[in-house]
């Protein structure tokens, strides 16, 4: 009987459901008498609704109701801020007044018998506005300091940090790089569009929703409607990609619940692809200035990193844009400053590797520019500035495998054959470039609960209200449970995605494996110990048979004081080969090797998928993704998947490798895992633009690296 499952390349336990179409996503739970909702959205960036005429829509065939700010019930919108919500500001209230603060704001909901009728009637709602002046051009906004954010744990994400004398050190540095790097707005664009089905039973509400955090969705909607959180059940077994877009509870969830209440029957709302650019958040546009000073021999003397990003007029969203610059390299003089550009847009949100993906693009681009200025190999420059400890937190690293990552990736890639001079490598008429960058992402560990139930027939059910947007929570938790229980994997059933299950933290920030995994492991160990003790047997199957009834164990796990004692991060290195067509300016990624020190790998098969998927996401960020914000009016003219290109099959590099270096971290959490979902996205874009520089001699400081910038 094999029970060693952690570390094994187990195929997905939900694989059969997914390849047969049986896995059901949010929009796929049809209820009797279900109606369909379609959202009408604002067409001005700021102002008031002067008139709204829904008469034609109401006469439309099959139309059940049309809700606007005039007839919608006033909702309590009680205070609630989940960990995923901006801590400063107030969330958008829907259909509560005539104010419009951005393009695409929901201003009416049409409910009809069929989706065709609802959509058609939505187009018949006539709206006029009294526009007011608006701000949608980031180049004309004066960025401001974020409001200080304090919590029980102290200051959240300090907007400014400083050590040493950065200005003085920079002024006297022998070699300097001072540049501005721009990253445009990006949209998550999961292939599953956001959807919610809402059904009321008296004052109890059930939501089938696309969410990365069922409990937070329940708490938010309960606060919005002023009902107890336990009256809201949220069900979300499968999430068709999210990458952060399903962390918060967006206005359409409220609209679905409002609509269901008004119609007196279940209502389904599914956003259109165009609405995905207005109805859910996005990775914000950032502008970053990086100044590096170094001695002639390559030792960093100063790092100054100043960045600002767009946010809405009603909330201060900020991300960890500058975190890596504070500790990634050894440097005595560091200054970081984070600011916000308030605009008439909807609030941005976390997108895969939030902060790190864009911040490390700037830092690692500047490091490459410094290597060029020093005439030094970029790997050598990084090794020379490798810190012994986190110089920002003044703590030792729980583990840090950057050296091993550089070595492993460089070897696999063949980095030693690189010719240093730009434009010196060719393949026929194509320019070949090799570039690299460092990657890092924090290890996050949050409180989690799990329940394990052993049945007399020797099977087990293990539950936690976690989510699986693709990394394989269903599978990896089954592995952890089977190993901790000492049962074959076929006898263990893990269930997630329902608020009736024990609390789980948000499925984001690469913390699910560490947090939920630790809870699952602890619950299963306890259930096994209890069963063996009560059954008076050394064999678990014999013990549960003797007991003759289920043995249950529920466990809550909490982080200890490890974050006070250690700086905990995953680290990695990405090496890339590009071919640039000198006549067409087109960049193709030919080879990409990532090496990661991410602690224990529970399932190498799934982890490889997650890593190469993140690298593909990085290709999109580097070469194509850009949600254009029309500065004149705040519209996104390319709000679809044809004009907002994302990587397709043909963009996949022929060579893709993800290497996991051996790393035993005893400090991070009981499982010794760090998570890989986010770090796989970090460092890819700068590795590609650094390779483009090596190929062409042109430095791309504004993403994406489209052909027009290379001609």
């Amino acid at each position, binding site marked *: 009987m094999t029970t060693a499952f952690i570390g094994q390349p187990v195929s997905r336990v939900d694989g059969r459901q997914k390849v047969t*179409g049986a896995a059901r996503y949010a929009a796929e739970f049809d209820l009797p008498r279900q109606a369909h909702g379609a959202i009408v959205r604002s067409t001005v960036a700021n102002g008031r609704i002067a008139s709204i005429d829904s008469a034609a829509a109401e006469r439309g065939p099959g139309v059940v109701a049309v809700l606007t700010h005039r007839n919608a019930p006033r909702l309590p919108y009680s205070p609630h801020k989940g960990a995923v919500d901006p801590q400063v500001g107030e969330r958008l209230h829907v259909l509560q007044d005539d104010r419009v603060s951005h393009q695409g704001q929901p201003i009416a909901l049409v409910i009809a018998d069929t989706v065709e009728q609802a*959509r058609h009637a939505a187009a018949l709602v006539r709206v006029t506005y009294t526009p007011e002046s608006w701000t949608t051009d980031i180049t004309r906004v004066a960025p401001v300091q974020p409001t200080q954010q304090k919590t029980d744990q102290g200051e959240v994400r300090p907007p400014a940090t400083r050590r040493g004398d950065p200005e003085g050190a920079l002024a006297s540095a022998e070699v300097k790089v001072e540049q501005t790097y721009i990253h445009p707005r990006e949209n998550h664009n999961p*292939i599953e*569009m956001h959807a919610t089905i809402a059904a009321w039973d008296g004052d109890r509400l059930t939501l089938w929703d696309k969410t990365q955090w069922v409990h937070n969705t329940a708490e938010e909607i309960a606060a919005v409607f002023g009902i107890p959180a336990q009256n809201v059940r949220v069900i979300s077994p499968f999430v068709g990609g999210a990458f952060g877009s399903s962390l918060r509870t967006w206005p359409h969830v409220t609209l679905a619940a409002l609509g269901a209440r008004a119609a007196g029957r279940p209502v389904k709302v599914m956003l*259109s692809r165009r609405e995905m650019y207005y109805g859910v958040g996005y990775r914000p546009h950032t502008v970053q200035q990086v100044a590096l000073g170094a001695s002639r021999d390559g030792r960093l003397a100063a790092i100054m990193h100043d960045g600002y990003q767009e946010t809405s007029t009603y909330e201060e969203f900020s991300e960890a844009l500058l975190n890596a610059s504070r500790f990634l390299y050894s440097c005595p003089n560091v200054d970081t400053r984070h600011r916000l550009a308030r605009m008439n847009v909807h609030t941005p949100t976390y997108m895969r590797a939030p902060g790190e993906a864009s911040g490390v693009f700037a830092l690692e681009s500047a490091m490459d520019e410094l290597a060029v200025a020093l005439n030094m190999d970029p790997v050598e420059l990084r090794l020379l500035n490798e810190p012994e400890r986190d110089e920002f937190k003044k703590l030792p690293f729980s583990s840090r495998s950057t050296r091993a990552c550089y070595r492993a990736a460089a070897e696999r890639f063949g980095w030693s054959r690189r010719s240093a001079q730009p434009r010196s490598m060719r393949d026929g008429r194509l320019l070949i470039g090799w570039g690299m960058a460092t990657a890092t992402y924090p290890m996050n560990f949050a409180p989690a609960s799990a329940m394990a139930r052993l049945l007399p027939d020797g099977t087990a059910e293990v539950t936690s209200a976690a989510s699986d947007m693709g990394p394989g929570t269903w599978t990896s938790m089954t592995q952890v449970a089977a190993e901790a229980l000492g049962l074959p994997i076929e006898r263990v059933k893990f269930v997630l995605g329902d608020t009736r299950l024990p609390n789980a933290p948000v499925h984001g920030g690469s913390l699910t494996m560490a947090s939920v995994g630790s809870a699952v492991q602890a619950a299963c160990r306890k259930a096994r110990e209890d069963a063996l003790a009560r059954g008076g047997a050394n064999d678990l199957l014999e013990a549960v048979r003797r007991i003759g009834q289920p043995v249950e164990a529920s466990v809550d796990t909490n982080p200890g004081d490890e974050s006070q004692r250690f700086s905990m991060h995953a680290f990695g290195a990405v090496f890339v080969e590009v071919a640039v067509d000198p006549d067409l300016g087109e960049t193709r990624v030919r080879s990409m090797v990532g090496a990661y020190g991410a602690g224990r790998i529970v399932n190498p098969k799934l982890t490889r*998928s997650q890593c190469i998927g993140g690298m593909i996401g990085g290709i999109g960020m580097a070469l194509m993704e850009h949600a254009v914000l029309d500065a004149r009016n705040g519209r996104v003219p390319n709000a679809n998947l044809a004009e907002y290109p994302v990587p397709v099959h*043909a963009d996949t590099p022929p060579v893709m490798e993800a290497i996991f270096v051996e790393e035993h971290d005893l400090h991070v959490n009981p499982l010794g895992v760090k998570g890989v979902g986010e770090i796989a996205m970090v460092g890819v874009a700068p590795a590609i633009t650094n390779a483009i520089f090596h190929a062409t001699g042109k430095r791309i400081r504004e993403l994406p690296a489209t052909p027009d910038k290379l001609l």
Partner: protein
Amino acid sequence: MSSDEITRREVLVLTAATGGLLAGGQLMWGPVSPAAAQDAASTPTPLEVMLRINGKEHRLTLDPRTTLLDAVREHLHLTGSKKGCGLGQCGACTVLMDGKRVKSCLSLAALMEGREITTIEGLAQGEVLHPLQAAFIERDAFQCGYCTSGQIMAGVACINEGHAGSPEEIREWMSGNLCRCGAYDHIVAAIQDAAAAPSATQGG
């Protein structure tokens, strides 16, 4: 003239007659044109449509604007075919029509009479998965699973068309099916595996 062109022209004629409003599609949220507004007053006459899906006949009464995708998802509750854009851009809705891959979000259900439609639910032979379905599990050719149905249906067609000769060829001919999780490398491997399997050119 190919059958694809006929279909497209027929679609254009029919969409013009119904106000051009495909559900889940390119709907703008501003005011519509007066012509379309007039259409609102008149109820589109429901159509009796006989659809043959996965070898079974279904008689449906449909709004003429109903796409094949919405017909199978909303009316037949075959939700394996996915809606990812409603604009023919992502491929998640790919089904086989008379053995050829089509994007069901761009196909009007009313035009599918007499066609043999195969969705992901019709691919396996009972409990036995199609070789490409099995290869998808073995190769871990998906993560979230939402584009998977479309990838598999397109992959089956890609093999049947003889476009699975090399990884490069597969990448080219599969590029109409987006995967935001980035499982492309493994999808190509799965299609190669299935193309080499003896029974791969069945199904659909």
